[in-house]
């Protein structure tokens, strides 16, 4: 038998705990998800290579760096993984002012000083939830990374969103923490927050390369996956089906008619692959557009209208009599907007 021998050959402890495996079909596994796990059903259609990338990250417990166009589902993947595996999800939305420590913990020294002043003498209060200035741990709040490190029963999913928005030094400050021994110290309380070896978090990082490449030592430690946009009407239809299946569960929204989805998907892919756009719309824009086509102001747009507009635009010379419906949802740059149909006065 090849398999048992192969696993025995790998001596690392990583193999001995129960394996988590991401399937990516949108179904939630496990009867008892963690209280911090996302509860909303996540319609996410993950291509097979992406599923493999997630599984490799789970296996090696190395951070998974996701890049790709805006709106191709980098952030949603973390929700999908946490939802499917029933793992707690902690998100850290990085901003331009973020420092590494923000993700570790916050310490409220002012509140402690305040309590120290007010709880002496006659102001002393009592009760189970009374803060005691003698205990500094009551004044520190763990950040997303700190909470992910504190999991002891199952690993957490830690999403570091848009890491490139922060200062150039930011990824370097994370380097030492997102690696062995997976620990950081809180000087104010003297605590050492360390992730358990059995429950190392799954770290998902998204980036848009806004400030150029991430530093090489950081990249070296990451598993890298570039999420391609699904330039295929079939995949788009699959995504639409998953999306409306999820919404049907929660909001009872009927799915748009199949003919409309087909026409819209084909038109959308043609727009993207046409190479005429300066900024390509993403999946989320497509779903919004479809939703508008389906029932904006109770005036659904028929599939033939979407098709007609498609045909007309190929003949550039003509003034387009039926412009693409809801262009404002798809085109986000002025140069991309289709030329306005010429009307009466204007020539």
């Amino acid at each position, binding site marked *: 038998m090849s*398999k048992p021998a192969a696993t025995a050959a790998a001596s690392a402890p990583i193999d001995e705990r129960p394996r988590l495996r991401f399937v990516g079909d949108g179904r939630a596994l496990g009867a008892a998800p963690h209280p911090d796990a996302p509860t909303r059903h996540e319609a996410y259609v993950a291509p097979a290579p992406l599923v493999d990338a997630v599984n490799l990250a789970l296996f090696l417990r190395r951070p998974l760096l996701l890049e790709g166009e805006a709106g191709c589902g980098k952030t949603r993947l973390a929700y999908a993984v946490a939802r499917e595996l029933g793992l707690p999800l902690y998100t850290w939305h990085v901003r331009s002012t973020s420092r590494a420590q923000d993700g570790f913990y916050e310490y409220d020294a002012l509140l402690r000083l305040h309590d120290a002043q007010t709880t002496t003498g006659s102001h002393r209060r009592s009760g189970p939830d009374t803060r005691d200035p003698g205990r500094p741990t009551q004044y520190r709040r763990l950040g997303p990374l700190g909470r992910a490190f504190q999991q002891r029963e199952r690993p957490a999913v830690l999403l570091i969103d848009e890491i490139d928005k922060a200062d150039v030094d930011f990824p370097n400050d994370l380097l030492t923490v997102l690696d062995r021994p997976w620990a950081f110290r809180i000087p104010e309380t003297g605590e050492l927050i360390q992730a358990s070896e059995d429950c190392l978090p799954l770290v998902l990082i998204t980036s848009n390369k806004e400030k150029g*490449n991430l530093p090489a*030592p950081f990249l070296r430690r990451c598993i890298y996956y570039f999420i391609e946009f699904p330039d295929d009407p079939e995949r788009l239809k699959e995504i639409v089906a998953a999306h409306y299946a999820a919404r049907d569960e929660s909001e009872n929204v009927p799915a748009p008619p199949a003919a409309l989805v087909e026409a819209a998907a084909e038109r959308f892919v043609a727009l993207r692959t046409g190479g005429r756009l300066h900024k390509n719309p993403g999946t989320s824009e497509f779903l919004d557009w479809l939703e508008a086509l389906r029932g904006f102001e109770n005036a659904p747009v028929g599939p033939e209208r979407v098709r007609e507009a498609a045909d007309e635009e190929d003949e550039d010379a003509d003034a387009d009599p039926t412009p693409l419906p809801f262009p404002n949802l798809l085109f986000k740059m002025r140069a991309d907007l289709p030329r306005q149909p010429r009307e009466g006065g204007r020539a």
Partner: protein
Amino acid sequence: MTPDRNDATADEVVRAVFARLRQNGVALGVGEVLAALQAARGDWRGAGADSAADPATLKQLLTLLWCHSPAEARELDLVWSLVSPTLLPVLPNRGTELTDEDQVPPPLPRDLDRPLTLPPPTITGPSTRTGDDALLSALPVRAPFLPARDEATGPAAASDPTRLRAYGPVSRRFLAYGWRRLRRLVADGPADLLDVNETVRQTARLGVYRGPVFRRRARNAARLLLLLDQNGSMTPFHRLGRDLIESAQTDGALAGVNVFFFHDVPSQMLYADPHLTRPAEREAVLAGDCDADTSVLIVSDAGAARGETVQRERVRATAGALQRIRRSTVLLAWLNPLPDARWTGTTAEYVSRLVPQFALNEDGFSRAIDVVRGQPLPAAGGR
């Protein structure tokens, strides 16, 4: 026995690919090899198949783990095609078939601890390989791999101008780090930093508590005057100049960045715009935007790009300009976008005797930053 053989072969492939990628400049370390080996031996996909047995799975693993851009993934594709014909035929196609002992060829004697000796063809490249003509003929059409660049890939990437940024000999990130080092801390902010040690010391000295001692907050007072040569032989480097300016202004945390442009020599007239249409007198610029604490960086090829012979007039004008700037500040350095090997015999060679001149690469840029932050402080009289 069977899996051992597979693992050993997978090890060889992993190490051979690693060696090739390292040679080609992909930044990988020992930790990455160990991680790849660990994953290759385990069932990382959780699919029940032994990933070491399936070449496609192994390749996918290495791509995910080792490649951090589409360009690097293409490089791995190529390396894989070189390595796999020599090593991979040993690998069976499916690990599941191996459970039947009869089909298994006798295991190779192998000691995993001994240093790996790779078959030389995998390392030395296609010229020494024999056989496989189809692969050889496919080789020369490949584009060279340039890890320093982040080249745009595909139609999607081409539409995204941010992907073109990290181009040239110095990446924007590196420039940002450099500017970050250019600091001159002056404690003239609001006095709101509690100095605990000083408070305790003062209380102990006076024997009575007089209240907390505050320090002033420090800020970076470093100012930068950038003078960029434009047009002519500097045209190919305009992009680099823009990167320099943008990174200094946005990522640098400097107190002030002033940028002026000139053509060939920073003579009497400088210009406030890159098209050299809004003139500004050099005297006025130096009087207004330059004091003794201002760092001045001049970016120019000093005639080295064309390889032109020394022009006396140009040398004299440059020397005069440098002398004038030195009267305002000694924190002065010259960045030349051409490597120093190209300076010989041109005005740049003379310039390098008048002023610290560095090639505009990562090393040169850091050294120039050292000079303009005054470490070590250059002598006022030139060198």
